[in-house]
């Protein structure tokens, strides 16, 4: 029986490859968009006393306090009511971008605040403007500090992209879901789904660990 199902599963491999392409495409686009949004909002949020920072903290709270699934439904089902028609792919990328942006905003603003204020002051005293100090001195250091967290965030983003399968995008998860309807061997089918995500995510997690190790001390041994 297993052999028969295994052959069936091999037959649907092309769909899994397409699904993997879809997962990578959605994640990559959202990653780029989310990073752009996150860095810009992160800079604006790093100075805590401005009105802009307050508004942005509401944005971050709303995105962090509600499930991505609900956000996706809001964008996919509600926007058409206001006459904004979107394809599933666009809706997925837009919602994932806004969602990822809020997390990256947090990471970036925390790293900017972690850069010693003397750095900016020294730069200002050399006659640079505020924005020059930010771009030339503070941001390069902050982003280097933020790198492990950012890579970790990208892993989360790839995993969260599995949620977009519910609005009918055929990513890895939906490829599994479609296959399991024909091949009733859930362990085998979703084992394959797991392997595919693992192949994409595990190297990134290791990269994040390597980056993290540069900033930390050794383990405690029992």
């Amino acid at each position, binding site marked *: 029986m297993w052999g028969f199902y295994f052959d069936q599963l091999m037959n649907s491999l092309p769909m899994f490859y397409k699904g993997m392409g879809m997962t990578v495409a959605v994640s990559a686009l959202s990653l780029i968009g989310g990073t752009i949004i996150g860095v810009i909002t992160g800079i604006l949020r790093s100075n805590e006393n401005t009105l802009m920072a307050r508004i942005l903290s509401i944005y971050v*709270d*709303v995105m*962090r*306090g*509600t*499930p*991505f*699934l*609900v*956000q996706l*439904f*809001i964008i996919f*089902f*509600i926007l058409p*009511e*206001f006459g904004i028609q979107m394809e599933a792919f666009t809706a997925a990328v837009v919602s994932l971008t806004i969602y990822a942006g809020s997390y990256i905003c947090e990471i970036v603003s925390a790293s900017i605040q972690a850069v010693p204020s003397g750095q900016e002051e020294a730069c200002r005293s050399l006659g640079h403007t505020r924005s020059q100090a930010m771009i030339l001195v503070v941001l390069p250091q902050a982003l280097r500090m933020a790198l492990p967290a950012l890579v970790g965030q990208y*892993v989360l983003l*790839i*995993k*969260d*992209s*599995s*949620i977009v*399968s*519910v609005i009918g995008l055929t990513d*890895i*998860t939906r490829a*599994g*879901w479609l296959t*399991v309807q024909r091949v*009733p*061997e*859930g*362990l085998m*089918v*979703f*084992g394959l*789904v*797991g392997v595919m*995500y*693992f192949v994409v*995510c*595990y190297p990134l*997690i290791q990269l994040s660990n390597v980056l993290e190790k540069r900033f*930390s*001390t050794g*383990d*405690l*041994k*029992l």
Partner: protein
Amino acid sequence: MLEYFNFRIIWEYMPLFMEGLYQTAWISLVGIIGSLVTGMIACACRISGIKLLVAPAVAFIEVIRSTPLLAQLYFLYFGLPSLGIQVDELTTGLVALSFNSGAYVAEILRAGIKGIPTGQVEAAMGQGFNVYQRFFYVILPQALANTLPPMLGQAIVLVKDSAVLSLISVMELTRAGQILNSERFMPAEAFLTVAALYLVVYYVLKGLMKFYQMRMTRFRSA
């Protein structure tokens, strides 16, 4: 915006939303307890130094962390029946949530344990404590105290993640929104209400986190 928004429908469906909120709270509570137990065991195995325990713990943590919750949920939902295990959707969901979150809890604990001075373990060894006593009596209590803020962060993540259970038709908050949307075709009323209710839960948990951090800093500085 407001002329589109039908408050009467929300009022009419309030019992359903409240039922969903109650279920989400209950699922989250069970999930948090389950993930604490899973996480402690996985973490203890991982730092035990006994090869036979380390390898499975590492494998469990890494596989969970590099695959999406939705894929894990489907793996159990479609996979358990082919093992001849018949359980209802709610149990499947709770197991998936506990295992998923447990892997993250294990990592949080490990990070908390890193901060404990080695002298603590050496002192416990000097008292003649064995490995289990060293872990459960000396290390774990301190690690739990150190890691409460990230644990609460994980609890917030778990509450949000529980939304995914709606996809295997478990009754909870997101499902309540889906039911309203499918009965009345009012996505705005359905999902904005759901999002608002999740936000309430989020702010309560976040307030707890802030309160605890405030108390800890007072306590530490005193």
